[in-house]
Every structure is written in C-alpha cells, then in structure tokens.
C-alpha cells in the first residue's frame, strides 16, 4: 500500500476501527465479573499458605499471538535440551485449533484457527498461594531465589502428577520421558518464550502490573 496516497483514508478508517474497539472494550465491562473470578483463582488463599511473590509472570496477548508455537520449542530447548511441546510451560498448541473449550457445535465462531482466530495461550501465574505447591506430596516445588518462580526440584519430584491436576491453568505437565513434572521456571529471569516470540505477543510482566494485564487479556478473549 502506498503510504502517501492512502494516508488520509487510512486515518479515517483507523479512527473508526479504534472507536469500535474502545466501545467493545467498554461493553466488556461484563469482564469485571469475569476478572473477579479469574483473580479469585489467581490469588486463591484457600490453603492459606502464602509465598514470597515472583518477580512477575509471563502473559500471552490473544490478539497478537499467531499460533506459530515457537515459544513451546524455545521453552523446551532452554529448559530440557529437546523439542517437546507437550511439556512446554507455555501452552499454545492445545488451544490452537479450537480454543480452550475444544470444538463445540458452534466452533466456527469460537476461539482458535477453525474459529474466530483467537489463540489463547496458557501460562503459569506463579500464584501467590500456588495450588501446585500445596498439592505436591514431596514438597518438590520451591521458590527460586533469583526470580521467585515456583520451580520443581527434579530430584525430589516423583512424577505423581498431582500438581498437574491441581493447577487451574493446566500448566505443570509430567514429562513422559523423564517421569518428572515440569512447570514454568521463568528461565532465570529471561523467559525464552517471550524472547523468541516473533510478534511480541508474549510479555514478562512485573508483578505490580499483572492484575491489570490479566483483566485486559480476559476482556480481549471475552470480546471475540
């Protein structure tokens, strides 16, 4: 598109698109209810076991994510030295075609590549009161000193999978090849998923900005 010729036209169109977007976001104030439930899980204190907060968490923008899944193989290259999306600590592939719900009767308007193109990547929330830690019978999940990430001690882990069941975001996964569980380590403070994302859809967000970012993300998913 030649920029000179199209500039005026584009400006007009852009403002319309922008307005529509803002309107949609406003309507998404129904998202207030949604975000309440999200944050409820996120800061769940039912087990009353609090931990020092992580420096931040990794979040995927469902609008910018194009589903290339480079994050998954970058994650396991760094953490495991192999290509293994099934145990990736960031989960995009499982929601790629049909979103979190899987195919429904109305899949063509649902999330995913066969739907409205929304790709919902799941990431670890490094929860304040982590269900994974509370569920682990071996006390194998500890708080990393450098990043505050909740990480698995491979020597202690017995691969029982209770952390995987406990996590509301389906992040921890028992590696069928090592029989040890895996979860997001924040890659020593430079998450490789975010570093390698070709659309900048993955961000490592400081803890104080997390709540806002999660609410915004939820609105985008709901609005689609």
């Amino acid at each position, binding site marked *: *598109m*030649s*920029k000179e010729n*199209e*500039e005026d036209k*584009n400006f007009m*169109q*852009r403002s319309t*698109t*922008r307005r529509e*977007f803002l309107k*949609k976001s406003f309507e998404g104030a129904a998202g207030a209810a949604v975000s309440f439930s999200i944050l409820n899980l996120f800061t769940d204190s039912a087990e009353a076991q609090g931990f020092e907060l992580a420096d931040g968490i990794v979040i995927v*923008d469902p*609008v*910018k994510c*194009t*589903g*290339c*899944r*480079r994050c998954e*193989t*970058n994650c*396991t*290259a*760094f953490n*495991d*030295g*192999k*290509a*293994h*999306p*099934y145990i990736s600590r960031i989960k995009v*592939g*499982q*929601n*790629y*075609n*049909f*979103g*979190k*719900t*899987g*195919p429904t009767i109305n*899949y*063509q*308007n649902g999330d995913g*590549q*066969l*739907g*409205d*193109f929304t790709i919902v990547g799941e990431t670890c929330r490094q929860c304040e009161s982590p269900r994974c830690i509370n569920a682990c019978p071996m006390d194998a999940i500890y708080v990393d000193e450098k990043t505050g990430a909740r990480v698995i001690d491979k020597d202690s882990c017995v691969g029982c999978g209770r952390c995987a069941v406990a996590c509301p975001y389906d992040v921890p996964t028992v590696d*069928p*090849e090592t029989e040890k569980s895996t979860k997001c380590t924040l890659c020593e403070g430079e998450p490789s998923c975010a570093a*390698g*994302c*070709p*659309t*900048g859809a993955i961000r490592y967000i400081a803890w104080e900005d997390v709540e806002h970012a999660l609410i915004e993300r939820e609105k*985008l998913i709901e609005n*689609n």
Partner: protein
Amino acid sequence: MPQYKGWAGEILRVNLSTGSISTEKTAKYKDYIGGMGIGYRIMWDEVPENTDPFDEENKIVFAAGPLTGTGAPCTARTNITSLLPANPQNLIGDSHMGGHFSPEMKYAGYDAIVIEGKAPRPVWLRIEDGNVSLENASKLWGQGIFDTTANIAGMMGKEAQVAAIGQAGENQVNLSTIMTSGNHSAGGHGGIMGSKNLKAIGIVGTQSVEYAADKKDWIELNEFVMSIIGANNQHVVPSTPQPWAEYHDSSSRWTAQEGLYWGAADEEVETGICPPEDTNKIGYRTMKAIKDLGEISEDYTVRMGGCQSCPIRCHSSVEVPELEKYGVSRYVSNTCMGFWNHYYVNQNYETKKDNFLNKTLGAQLADDYGLWFNYGQLGRDLKYAYDNGILKEVLPAEEYNDIPWDLYEKGDPQFLVDLYRRIAYQEGEISHLGDGAAQLAERWNFGEDYWNDQTNSLWSPLGYPVHHANESNGQVGSLINLVFNRDPMCHSHQNFLGSGLPIKLQKEIAAETWGSEDAIDVPANYTPMNRAKARFAKWSLVRNVLHDSMTVCNWMFPMVTSPLKERNYRGDTTLEAQYFSQATGMNVSEKELDEMGRRILTLHRAMTVKQMGTVDMRNEHDQIVDWVFDMDPDKEPFDAGTIKMDRDDMEKAKTMLYQELGWDPETGAPTGETLDELGMQDVKRELANKNLLPYQA
C-alpha cells in the same frame, strides 16, 4: 535409528485391506533423509508401474524429516507422495502442506505414515503415540473438512492435529486436496484417500523430538537464522522506503510499514517499522493479505498466521461478515493461490469488493470440499471452454441451462457456490473440470490453441501450468518447470530472484554461489544458455527436494541473501547442512547434503522413466508448449522486453542440466554410472532389467 537424533526412528504402516498396523525402522531409509525421499523410495520399491492411482495397490506416504518438529524455523511441512491422478500418465508426484500435522506425527513417534490397500468401509486413522487404531468413519463420510476436523478433535481431544479430505476427495475428484488445520492444503492426492475409504488421520503426540547438538549450539543456530531471515519468500528489502533500509522494492513481501494495520484485530495492531534486528517483530513483516486480497483487505485482517515453528506469518486470517449470506463462516484463512484460484474462476467481477468476496468465499468453499485448482488452471480451463462455446457442445442442454451463467458473466461470487458443489460431488459433465487439464482437454476435445495460447498459462503437455518458469530467469525457471510430473513447487530460484536487491548485488552473489554472474540475467533481458545457469537450475532443484525431505519450507529457504547491510546482504547457504548435522548428529558438509538431494531427485527421475517405459525423457517428458517460443511475434528471443525462449537454446539448456545432474545428456535419463555413484545399484539393476538405462537399447 538409535545412534542418530532428529528422526523419530519409526515409520507407521497401515494396511487398510487387512487392518494390519505395524511399524518399521526409519534407518532403512536414512540415505533418502525423509519426506519426499522416503516417499519416492517406498513408491519405487513397492508400487509397480502401470498401477492406477485409485487402485488398491497404490500407496500414499505422509512423511516428515529429521528437522520436522525440532522447532528450527520453518520446519513444519508435510510431504505426501503417491501417484498423481491428474497427471495423464499417473506419474509419481508430491503434494505438500504446512500447518501442525507433521510435527505432531513426529511427537507421536513416527517419521512417516504409509497407507496401503483399501478399507472395506469408510474409516479414519486414530494415532495417540503408540496407540493406533482404525475407527468407523461412516458418520464422517459426506462431511466437509471443517466439520470432520472438529468431530475428530471432539473425539481425540482439542489438541489433536487432523488431516482430512472433503467431499471432493471422497468422490475421487482428480483435483482434490488433503487438508489440515482448516487452511493448509496439499493439492492432488485427496482422491487417493477417498479411493482407500480413508477419511482422515488424527494425531496426538506427547513425545519429544531430540537433536544431537548441545542445546547451546542449537539455540545459537536458531538465533542466527532469526537474525538473517527476511520476509515471506526470503524477500530481504521492504516494499516501501523504511528508515532502516538502504533499498526497497514494491514487489517485496516485506510490507510492514507505519499506517498498515491488522485492521480487524480486537486491539490496535500496526505492522509498523520492522527493522531486521527486531526479532520480536518478524511476524509483522509480511502482511500477505494486501498482496493476495488487495488493499481492501486491510480492514478485514484479524491477524496473520501460518505453520508451526515459522516466524514468518504468510497466511492471512480475515473476517468477512458478508460471507455469511452465502452460507459459510465469516472467518477465512489462506495464502497465495488458496485465494487467487478463485480469481481465475470468476474473472468477470465488476467491483474490487466482488473480487475480494470471490477470493475469500472461494477459499472457504474449496477448503471445506477439499477442491484443488491445479495452480489456478481450473478457472482458466473453464474460461477457455466457455469463451469458445465448448461447454454448449459438451454439456447436455438440460445441464447447461441449469448452470447460472448469468452469475458467471457478472463474476458474481454466488456462482462459486453452484460450480464448486457440482465439481466436488461430480455432478454432471461440468464436473470434469476437476479431472485436470490434460484429461479435460482430451475429453472436451480442446484445440491446439488451448495449449498454445499464452493466456491459458499452460507449461507442459502433462497438463500443468507455468510456476516460476520462463518469467523467472529464462532457462533456469524453464528447466525447473520440466523435471517434475506436476507444477514444480520450487522456490529456490524464485526466492533469490525476488529478494529485492539491486541486480548488480544479485550478480555478485550469484557469482559467489554458482560460479559466474552470468547465472542470472536482467529480468526479461535474457542471454543464451550458459554453464552457470545450469548450475543454478541444478542447485535450485536439489535444494527443493532436500527441503521437502528434511522437511524445511522451500518458500523461505535457501537463504542466499539476508536483510543485513553489515553482511553485505549475504545469507548463508550452509544452513541446511548445519541443521541436518546438528539435528541428526551425522556430520555432513553442504556438498555432501546436496549430493543426498541429487540422489532423491535422481530417484524421482528413475521412477518417471520406469513408469513411462522410455529413457527418452527429453522428447517424451521434458516438453514445453509452443507459446513459450512463439510469443511476442515482433520480438526475437533474447531481445530486451520479452521472456520468449529459443527452441535450440532450450535443448542446449536441457543438455547442460542433464550433465550437471549426471543424467544422460542425450535422453535425460539417469545413467548407470550415476546410479552407482549415488549408491542406487538396486535401482540400476531394475532399470537394466527393464531395458531402461541409456545406451542399452
């Protein structure tokens, strides 16, 4: 293959006639790498010549390679090999698809899936790692590809990757596809699955793909590729002037610029300024929508998309509410010919909007039916038959009058709804448009003018059209268009020629890569054939088959150039060998890997010789239709401003290519010496037994 990494190590064999499911070691095929190479070797060994594509004896091979699934950029291609129903002699050929299917196959533990026989009733193949079963597909039979995919994911889990056929494949339409993830299609083999009563393959894989290299080296190599990668087709300059760029070229697919947006995204996403060093913006470089669907598409673009592992997002995902009135979903995704095919069918459109609707509606319908268009040829065939009054002669009057030609005359998108249903369900005589050009021309008795009119764009009497041929560096593109049994899916040469760099720089790089700057000409200002062009053509073909064997995307590799001024725009042609070595642990040089590619290409040639029953490839196979030599009557070949070729020069070009490949310079058939040299003594013996080695007769 315990001593090597990269490969999964096993090949899955499913015999649909007996229901037997077994595995074998990939190691047996390692000299043929994977993908296309494994496909050819299995077809050579196991499918006798004179087999009909739809016979139970035909096989179909879905194959990945050692790079597939490793996460190396652009490594998610699936290569499918079988006999080609649309080829008038049913010669061997490949269809290819991107998406997420072959990586999932690797994660399930298989380098390839070989389908044999024919199921007594419709089935689908369910693969969950080592648990493999044939399932009843009676409820799926008759469904489109989208619903089939959704149904199988519903049964297997949302993470399943599915390859399926639609109604066109079920009805054994020659021009039909196998499709995965809703928008990645392999053209030409849908009917093979249909003939075998195999509706779909669903895969869930939970295992890893290992690489031999130390993870630090592996990550470094990936980061290096991310630093020299360009835009789609490895275009390395932007399409408009950019603050970071020394050059620009309007035909480049590096379209990112300020003011160009994914206009239908739910938040503001500007493609913006994407300098090469910003690797977190690589995915915005190519907004293919505006190339394929016009500027109008900007406001409809939800996002770009594409294959697993690829940072270049060449598929356009658009939301077109108007499509709902035609009874299809408003969400459409595809790229290139996936949209353009429908322009060729409905060329009489009145407005740009109608053209946009034709392309998007056509893609939606065709991707659900699983229709293939022979690289745009189907639409041109329809136009030829209609414009020349042939349809009135060959269609029964009742059928002719039932087709809404008034909509065709107006280029109304609604026409596609009618036409595509007829082809997919093989309703009436008109459905023979789906037979393929050569078979259609014979059936409807097209004249010589059909083949020789440049506007019909045919290339070969085998019924396939031009695909980066004489318009792409004269003899080089022409030679590349001669070797396969369908349109070549080769972009090795095209990517380089279209890089966007100035010709002087391109010539310098050509000299470094193929020994002389004469390997390339100024576009449409050609010089006679020379040795460097033959080397360039050979190299392009060899890299193409390597890519389809490893599997690496030939729309991005080889990376001869880069967008980096500090590298003087040089890319790196050793990347494939580096990747192969790091992934497998089998250390090969660039030259050694190219020789493996030559082996695979030579096996394709040997199979073609065996199937055609003649060594005379030059005259029986490597033929070009007349317009290529007779176009632009006011100009001579090698005049400035024409892509017209010279007949004698083209024969000389064939000779030189045959010599470069070690094929007989006279006939173009593989020689016994070359087969020995490439370690294919068994192929040599079989050809000798059939009297099909050059010099024998």
